[in-house]
């Protein structure tokens, strides 16, 4: 009886220590990646290639999601506001929530699922098939050659994708509010312009998406690089990227919102 209890407590201790060890490895790994970013100057082609697979290929899902999120936001806020005769504020509701929350957060969640998992799987498979050790044998630094371009591409692509998401969402909201529900087009834009600040709303939303870009890319490349080199470990690492990435986004979103908008 006591043995079982002791075993349980030991397991708890081991899990905690493992967690801290992973966190430490991840931090050291991030430092190493950051110190190897300079290598990109010698080979900009590597970055371009990653920007294509991380940014351009994520574009379609971002555009479609943004369009429909904007449209449904306009529809829902119209139903809520029309009772108060404030249906002209639909644009404020749509644009504000897109810029501050939905743009950065949904883009980051989709990004973790679409691009983050691909990054982990790619790097993890390179590790499993010993391509990374092969590179080291040939005196090529795999962090500089493989990891750093992917990390930087994620960091650059994320704010751009969030901006595209928000812009397409605003257009979707405009379509529903003006073309479908018959609100005044001028009132739509004038209300948005009167109530939305360039720095406070757009600027802070972009800072959020940049932070999310760093965190998701970091988790994705680390999970790939740190995965157990088996097909099972690779699958687990990919899952972990999406789960940890999404949780990190949602928790960080609360922290950032409290810091930026909570006065």
């Amino acid at each position, binding site marked *: 009886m006591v043995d079982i209890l002791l075993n349980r407590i030991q397991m708890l201790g081991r899990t905690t220590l493992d967690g801290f060890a992973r966190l430490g490895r991840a931090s050291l790994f991030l430092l190493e990646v950051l110190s190897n970013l300079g290598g990109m100057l010698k080979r900009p082609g590597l970055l371009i290639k990653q920007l294509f697979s991380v940014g351009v290929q994520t574009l379609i899902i971002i555009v479609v999601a943004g369009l429909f999120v904007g449209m449904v936001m306009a529809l829902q806020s119209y139903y809520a506001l029309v009772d108060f005769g404030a249906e002209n504020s639909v644009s404020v509701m749509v644009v504000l929530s897109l810029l501050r929350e939905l743009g950065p957060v949904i883009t980051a969640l989709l990004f973790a699922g679409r691009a983050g998992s691909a990054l982990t799987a790619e790097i993890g498979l390179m590790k499993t098939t010993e391509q990374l050790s092969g590179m080291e044998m040939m005196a090529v630094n795999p962090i500089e050659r493989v990891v750093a371009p992917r990390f930087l591409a994620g960091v650059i692509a994320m704010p751009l994708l969030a901006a*595209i998401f928000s812009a397409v969402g605003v257009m979707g909201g405009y379509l529903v509010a003006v073309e479908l529900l018959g609100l*005044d087009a001028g009132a739509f834009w004038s209300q948005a312009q009167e109530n939305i600040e360039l720095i406070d709303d757009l600027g802070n939303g972009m800072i959020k998406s940049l932070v999310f870009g760093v965190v998701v890319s970091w988790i994705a490349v680390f999970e790939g690089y740190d995965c157990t080199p088996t097909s099972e470990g690779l699958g687990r690492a990919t899952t972990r990227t999406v789960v940890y990435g999404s949780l990190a986004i949602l928790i960080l979103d609360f922290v950032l919102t409290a810091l930026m908008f909570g006065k």
Partner: protein
Amino acid sequence: MNTRTLELMVGLFVAAGIAALFMLAMSASNLSTYGGDEGYTVKARFDNIGGLKARSPVSAGGVRIGRVTEIGYDMAGYEAWVTMSIDPQYNAFPIDTSASILTSGLLGEQYVGLEPGAEEEYLTSGSVITLTQSALVLEQIIGQFLYSKGDE
């Protein structure tokens, strides 16, 4: 995929991202000059414009016929100036047309309502509407109501 196509696509992606940021900045700040259909401008003086804003609608008989383009304050007469642009097809408003600031719904947006007069001459670009009625400010009305109740 060859390098050229790849770089082209990435270039397009970055350009689209920057264009999206630009579009958001335009719709979020007052930089844009959306809906710049050329109309003629008339001015009106008001004692109090309430919550009227630039780009608020101008309507006659409930139909939107133009927009407020500029709002200013005249230190000489201590009055607010409202400049509005009327769409060119509505070019036959008599010169004694009156303007009032109205509210759509109880708490809705404020707009300028034009009530046509009876003169033969028409408003043209640069005309000044002299017959105006200020916005009804809810607090003032409630205040007056309470005072009048208090007197009874």
